[in-house]
């Protein structure tokens, strides 16, 4: 996985989170996921990384595979996936809030 310096947020930029975030907008197949993640996070997921994460998310019931269309299989968020993403984002926001507050207005400007 390659990351642009702006998007390199360490362990928070893990592929699973990026995939869940992308699927929050609606079902997408593999290539569309790569392009969307690239667009909103500046991170290019390789196919090996992408499908490793998709396999894990599917096994954990966070996403589900839909009917394949010409070898391209779309994935969608499950209810559990939606809830997990909400929790993760809320926790990230809490960390971000604390970090920004501690930096102070002068240093975040």
């Amino acid at each position, binding site marked *: *996985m*390659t990351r642009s310096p702006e998007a390199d947020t360490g362990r928070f930029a*893990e592929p*699973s989170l990026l995939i869940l975030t992308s699927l929050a907008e609606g079902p997408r*197949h*593999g*290539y569309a996921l*790569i392009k969307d993640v690239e667009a909103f996070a500046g991170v290019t997921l*390789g*196919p*090996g*990384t*992408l*499908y*490793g994460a*998709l*396999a*894990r998310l*599917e*096994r954990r019931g966070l996403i589900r595979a839909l009917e*394949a269309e*010409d*070898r*391209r*299989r779309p994935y969608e968020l499950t209810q559990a996936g939606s809830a997990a993403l909400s929790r993760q984002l809320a926790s990230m926001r809490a960390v971000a809030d604390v970090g920004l507050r501690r930096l102070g207005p002068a240093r975040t400007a």
Partner: protein
Amino acid sequence: MNPDLAPTRLVRGLLRLYPVGWRTRFADEVAAVLVAVLADDGRRRARIALDVVAGAIDAHIHRSFEPGRKLMPDRVRTSAQVAFCAFALFCIAGTGFQKMTEDMRFQTVARTHDAIGWSFDVILYGAITAALCVVAGSLPVLLGIAKQALAGRRDLRCLLVSPPVAGVAWFALAFAVTRLDHSPQHSLVNVAAVVAVVVAFHVVAAVSTGALVLAAGRADLPAPVKRAQWLPMTGLSAAMVAVTVADLVWGLTLRAEAPTLFRSHNGLLATPVPATWVTTLALMALASAVTVAATARAIGVVRADRASASLG
């Protein structure tokens, strides 16, 4: 098929690195994505190929994520079901030992010879510990099954009532046999009646165990309940091994300290004591070995899952 998405030799070669189960599920999709990505940016060919190789290594290491494989809690549940079946066999062997040693002569020997009495105590308390471990492990499972049975799962309801119904039927048979005329003691009718009770006991044990194991397999139990089974299974394994070793010590000590009783025909159904002892010991050893193996598998599955989770 869209001809633009046809996999090249490189793509097919890379996909061959993945485990078969993984390929069956994902190969077509990954091939389509790889072809599209390589067409997008041919300059990153080496980096993309490396990413796929790393993905294949990951898929081989973390086989629990492979499509079609049972999830970790289900694999622990299967191990617990195996251990439960082994425990049922252990109980049958233990019942045979108990029936033999309830004779006053064995009780007296246990009181007068320290080593025999000590091993007998280990068998008794080990069996109680094993039973408590089974209760601790099966209680949340039974509650889960009962909840679903009451919520309308007819199959679970039938499976859940099978053990008590079979038990009542056995008690009725045993009660009927006690009402028979027992003179002369070794008449054909008496022997046939006793054999019928013993055979029926084994059938009831098998039916009850099978029904409960089937119900535990069919019920939608919460993952933590299934995952936590490794803990009582560990206690059960330790207790069963302790009882088996104590049974071995008991027999060897009886042979050395009370040879006349050891060589007598005070075993089950008036068979020689060594025959009953060796049979119960062999069954206990088999049941203990199966339980230890199932427990090791359950612990291994839980540990592997923790390692997978921590590695993402």
